């Protein structure tokens, strides 16, 4: 009997749980006999589930260059994520994937200057790309990261940003928070405005992820600066059940986010109906 | 009739009494009329229809319509006025925002009953002295009018309008419908026979939720069967238990509020006699707690919101009918 249907999940063990922000935790997952459950490319997703609680699509936050484990940064939001936030290290979960396309790190992005724009938990899918780029540094041009959040405490992966990314040569990190806060001497203001202030070179390729409203204004700002839609990539999220374009709910027009996405270039999205 | 309704609707639109008209719109064929909202005289003239095949109950649409700005004209058949009243009573419809014109009721026809006779390719249906002349692509067929009467009209409980602002045609009376006959017949069967009857009926259910969504008494914002936190959420009956569960609870949740409009059975794509479940509750309520007709007025306390010190005990169930 054929047992390898993609709908039948594999198992993973949570070996580490890190509290990133008050409502975001990062989970480290390995296969029961060690190593990664499967290989992926930056931007791809996986279906995580606790049987009886729910199943949900999460972007894989760790870079494929990490050969030991996968990581998922998950915001507490609904039924499943609340459960995940309450579990302890050693818990098994079911996992299937990888699903979706990926950021074109080996094709279109190669050799390009990269500008990453992220808001809040939107850093999760981009972190995979950023670390992939850091590990293959010679393949890419300059790297600039603009990342903002509601407050200092809501910056995901703050320690990694400070300790590793900021210390890398050729990587410029610009952080911002929405409102002034004690102990914060960095920039204050919304991400779209900050991007405009920074006035990045229009040669770079942009990767944006964050709340829909942030994406909308960032795109408008980039266009003002002279960026073209073909230079900007984003990653989407909609309700998913199967992960393979068959259950029929995550479509934007004729594209399924789980299969044709989640990564879209803005000129592609422009051809689709505004229903996301 | 249809002409008089269009004329009156146009007048009321023109003089500003109402902003919209809730009625039925002609379809592709002779029988597929759709409930619709009309806003212009031209639209009314071209598309408004009211005939023997406009059986849909419009009252539930008024929940949505009365949330909108302005006043809406609704044409209600006698049975629809009961549903309307019940919704007013439950504060789901703002009475002030509806101008009700009572129109004579059925008997309405059920196109499926015509098709069940093997008549297919239907182009038009005409009632000539209670003989239906059905023009089809395979020639003309005839059948007695009463053999095609919709199930919901077969045991009409009332031709009286319980609420209206004006009437077109004459008001009728509450009828002695004999509507509990089938319930009684089932009650007199043995438990095994009843079980077999309902198993064969309910196992046809495809859980399309048409019975629930069309029901004027089912107006919850979120149904318990759609709510993952309820513990009973289900989308498809994965086991015969879930078929029973859904239909028992559906009927129970409208017990004492169901006006017996018959929409549930009319819309069931699998022809399950769902109204029998509702009628069972109505019959029990009538027998045990005194005759009660939901929607008859907007003041009486609903039987399940009420009690008497000397109500019968639940063991009464053990003392009735066949085992």
């Amino acid at each position, binding site marked *: 009997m054929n047992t390898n249907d993609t709908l039948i999940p594999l198992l993973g063990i949570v070996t580490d749980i890190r509290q990133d922000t008050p409502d975001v935790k990062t989970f480290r997952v390995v296969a029961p006999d060690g190593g990664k459950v499967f290989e992926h490319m930056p931007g791809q997703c996986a279906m995580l589930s606790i049987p009886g609680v729910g199943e949900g699509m999460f972007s894989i936050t760790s870079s494929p260059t990490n050969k030991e484990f996968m990581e998922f940064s998950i915001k507490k939001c609904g039924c499943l994520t609340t459960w995940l936030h309450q579990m302890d290290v050693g818990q098994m979960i079911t996992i299937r994937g990888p699903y979706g396309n990926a950021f074109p790190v080996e094709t279109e992005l190669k050799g390009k200057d990269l500008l990453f724009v992220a808001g809040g938990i939107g850093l999760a899918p981009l972190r995979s790309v950023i670390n992939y780029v850091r590990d293959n540094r010679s393949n890419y041009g300059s790297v600039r990261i603009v990342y903002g959040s509601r407050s200092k405490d809501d910056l995901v992966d703050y320690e990694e940003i400070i300790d590793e990314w900021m210390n890398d040569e050729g990587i410029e990190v610009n952080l911002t928070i929405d409102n002034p806060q004690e102990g914060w001497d960095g920039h204050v203001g919304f991400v779209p405005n900050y991007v405009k202030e920074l006035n990045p070179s229009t040669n770079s390729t942009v990767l944006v992820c964050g709340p829909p409203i942030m994406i909308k204004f960032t795109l408008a700002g980039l266009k003002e600066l002279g960026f073209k839609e073909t230079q900007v990539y984003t990653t989407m999220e909609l309700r998913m059940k199967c992960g393979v374009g068959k259950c029929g709910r995550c479509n934007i027009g004729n594209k399924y986010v789980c299969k044709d996405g989640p990564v879209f270039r803005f000129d592609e999205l422009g051809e689709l109906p505004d229903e996301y | 009739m249809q002409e008089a309704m269009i004329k009156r609707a146009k007048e009321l639109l023109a003089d500003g009494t109402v902003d919209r008209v809730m009625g039925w719109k002609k379809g592709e064929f002779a029988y597929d009329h759709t409930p619709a909202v009309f806003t212009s005289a031209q639209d009314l003239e071209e598309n408004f229809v009211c005939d023997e095949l406009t059986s849909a109950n419009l009252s539930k649409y008024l929940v949505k319509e009365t949330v909108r700005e302005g006043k809406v004209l609704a044409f209600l058949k006698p049975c629809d006025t009961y549903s309307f009243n019940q919704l007013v009573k439950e504060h789901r419809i703002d009475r002030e925002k509806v101008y009700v014109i009572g129109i004579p009721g059925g008997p309405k026809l059920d196109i499926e009953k015509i098709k069940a006779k093997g008549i297919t390719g239907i182009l038009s249906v005409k009632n000539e002295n209670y003989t239906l002349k059905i023009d089809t692509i395979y020639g003309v067929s005839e059948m007695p009018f009463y053999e095609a009467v919709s199930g919901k009209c077969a045991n009409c409980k009332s031709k009286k309008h319980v609420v209206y602002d004006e009437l077109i045609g004459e008001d009728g009376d509450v009828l002695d419908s004999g509507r509990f006959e089938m*319930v009684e017949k089932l009650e007199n069967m043995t*438990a095994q026979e009843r079980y077999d009857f*309902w198993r064969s009926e309910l196992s046809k259910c495809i859980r399309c939720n048409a019975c629930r969504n069309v029901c004027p008494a089912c107006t919850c914002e979120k149904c318990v069967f759609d709510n993952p936190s309820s513990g009973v959420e289900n989308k498809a009956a994965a086991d015969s238990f879930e078929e029973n569960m859904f239909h028992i609870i559906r009927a129970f949740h409208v017990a004492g509020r169901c006006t017996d409009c018959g929409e549930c059975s009319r819309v069931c794509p699998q022809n399950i006699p769902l109204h029998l479940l509702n009628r*069972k509750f109505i019959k029990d309520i009538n027998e045990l707690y005194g005759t009660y007709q939901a929607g008859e007025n907007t003041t009486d306390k609903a039987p399940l919101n009420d*009690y008497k*010190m000397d109500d019968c*005990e639940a063991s009464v169930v*053990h003392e009735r009918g066949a*085992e």
Partner: protein
Amino acid sequence: MQVNENKEFQPLIVAFCCNWCSYAGADLSGTNRLNYPTNVKIIRVPCSCRVNPMFILRAFQRGADGVILCGCHPGDCHYTSGNYFTRRRMTLLFGMLDFLGIERDRTRVEWVSAAEGAKFAATMNEFTEAVRKLGPNRRLEDLRCRKQ
């Protein structure tokens, strides 16, 4: 463990007991050393009126062979009138279950006060026997939940 082929059928009885009267009645029957079958599993509810028809159905789904609902005597409800509503509700629900051909002896409502420990034990004995005679619940069970 030995499996006895001829083992007598042991029904699973779910008893919803109101906190103020019937649960205390069950307690009293215990302190009085009165016997009632271990088949009875008690679920304490604040008032008999808390028991939604779905509770009864779900008990059957999850393997109960009989469901009994116990509350304060009419007139004695801690919340004044809860049990009056229960009475109407359950009468209609049981009538419907009967109408669908579900054995009527699988369901019961009984009023048990905090002082009626003996009545509680007697009721449970009697009800368990009645359900035992009916055999396993097959008409309102969920096959997925049947114990292998």
